């Protein structure tokens, strides 16, 4: 369903993604794990037509996101890591507009939007502009929006960041339900290892732009003689904190952007 072969993304001299290859089967829940700045979001952006790869091959449902943008966009849904709702619109309008853009029929919208707003406990605030929402409420709205249409592939980029345990539970049970009921393929990233251990069928661990391990949670634990996935993760990626790295990456990217944009 998702295929990446020798995928590379460079920002100027900086290689954010270095020659990675992986494959996700239909109906699989695939977790893409790695420290901050490892290249997870960059990879997702390349898979979802937001960024063109420097080199390598990508296929979503057999199609190349670079050449068949529209068809590829029709096949997936995504919950972004950072905010992407419109602050000036109300919670309801955000969902409704999303439904129109994703061609969810009016009847289905009228049925699903209230259901999702109630599920993520935003129903009472449905007519308030999003700018009045707290961080957690915005996050819940983003997730509710991601579930409004049923795509073939669902991308979840750190969906549980900043969520309370209740909402996290709702989210994962919903994801499992979609995966089992409608055979939706799920590609997710998270920093919570126990979540990945619980929901993912297979895991790839990426560090400094390269995939350093791939397999089922069980295999990864055996490989590193670890009891939990978190221990396995730390054994594979080391214990150095990457925040410095991450901001470097951002700087490089901004620099690269500035540069390329001046000379289009």
């Amino acid at each position: 369903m998702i295929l990446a072969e020798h995928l590379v993304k460079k920002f100027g001299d900086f290689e954010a993604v270095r020659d990675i290859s992986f494959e996700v089967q239909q109906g699989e829940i695939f977790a893409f794990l790695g420290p901050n700045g490892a290249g997870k979001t960059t990879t997702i952006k390349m898979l979802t037509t937001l960024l063109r790869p420097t080199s390598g091959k990508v296929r979503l449902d057999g199609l190349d996101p670079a050449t068949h943008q529209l068809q590829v966009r029709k096949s997936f849904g995504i919950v972004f890591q950072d905010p992407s709702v419109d602050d000036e619109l109300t919670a309801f309008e955000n969902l409704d507009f999303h439904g129109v853009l994703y061609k969810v029929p009016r009847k289905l919208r009228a049925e699903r939007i209230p259901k999702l707003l109630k599920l993520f406990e935003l129903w009472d605030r449905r007519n308030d502009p999003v700018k009045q929402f707290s961080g957690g409420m915005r996050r819940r709205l983003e997730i509710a929006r991601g579930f409004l249409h049923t795509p073939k592939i669902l991308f979840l980029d750190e969906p549980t960041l900043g969520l309370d345990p209740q909402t996290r539970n709702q989210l994962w049970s919903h994801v499992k339900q979609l995966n089992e009921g409608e055979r939706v393929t799920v590609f997710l990233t998270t920093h919570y290892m126990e979540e990945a251990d619980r929901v993912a069928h297979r895991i790839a661990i990426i560090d400094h732009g390269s995939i350093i391990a791939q397999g089922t949670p069980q295999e990864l634990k055996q490989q590193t003689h670890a009891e939990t996935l978190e221990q396995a993760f730390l054994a594979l990626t080391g214990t150095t904190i990457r925040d410095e790295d991450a901001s470097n990456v951002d700087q490089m990217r901004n620099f690269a952007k500035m540069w390329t944009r001046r000379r289009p």
Partner: protein
Amino acid sequence: MSAIYVMWLRQMKRYARSRARIIGSLGQPLLFLLGFGFGFGPVFQKAGQGNYIQFLAPGVVGMTILFTALFSGIELIWDRQFGFLKETLVAPVPRILIMIGRTAGGATVAIFQGLIVIAICLVVGFRPVSWTAWPAAFVYMALIAVMFTALGTAIASLLADFQGFQLVMNFLVMPTFFLSGALFPLSSTMTPIEVIASFNPLSYGVDGLRGALLGGGYHFGAATDLAVMSAITVVLLGLGSYLFSRVQL
């Protein structure tokens, strides 16, 4: 079609909800109308050019539309920074429809602002020749609005953040306004300015608008104004669509 509508509707809702913006953006045209209009009025009259308010009002309307339209286009940078752009970029809708919807929304907002300023002009003493002038005037207003919203979108597609904004403001928006014949009659100015103005699309928009409202006195001629405005609008729409379709995040 529904994608265009929804993008347009979003702009309308945002506009209707920002009363501060609506009122705030009327300050500048009002200042030009009152300060310039009454300040230079006597000089203009002495030079044998007639009533300056009559001359200036279409120019100030053009200015209002220029500013509002360009900023509506440039709002794309906001959407990029606040994240909503991502939502529209991954949607299963051809980007050209997103672009058309945005442009239609921005242009509608600009036309609204232009109509409010016309109402103010009428209060201040501006008198169009006859009410039959309105349809033609409206066409020019719409052309100015669409043209500069498309231009704003094109520019915003190239900018990653607001750092380049001042550049656009000082080297594009202000010169477009001041070198357009919005404030002074073109036929009586020095040749270099006239040459520059003849390359400025706003000159044709203002000229057409003025000619329509005053019932004649075109500098370029109604047919030229309409042809030039339409052609440039089409080109900028194409350019904006192309650049927007290539936006990466």
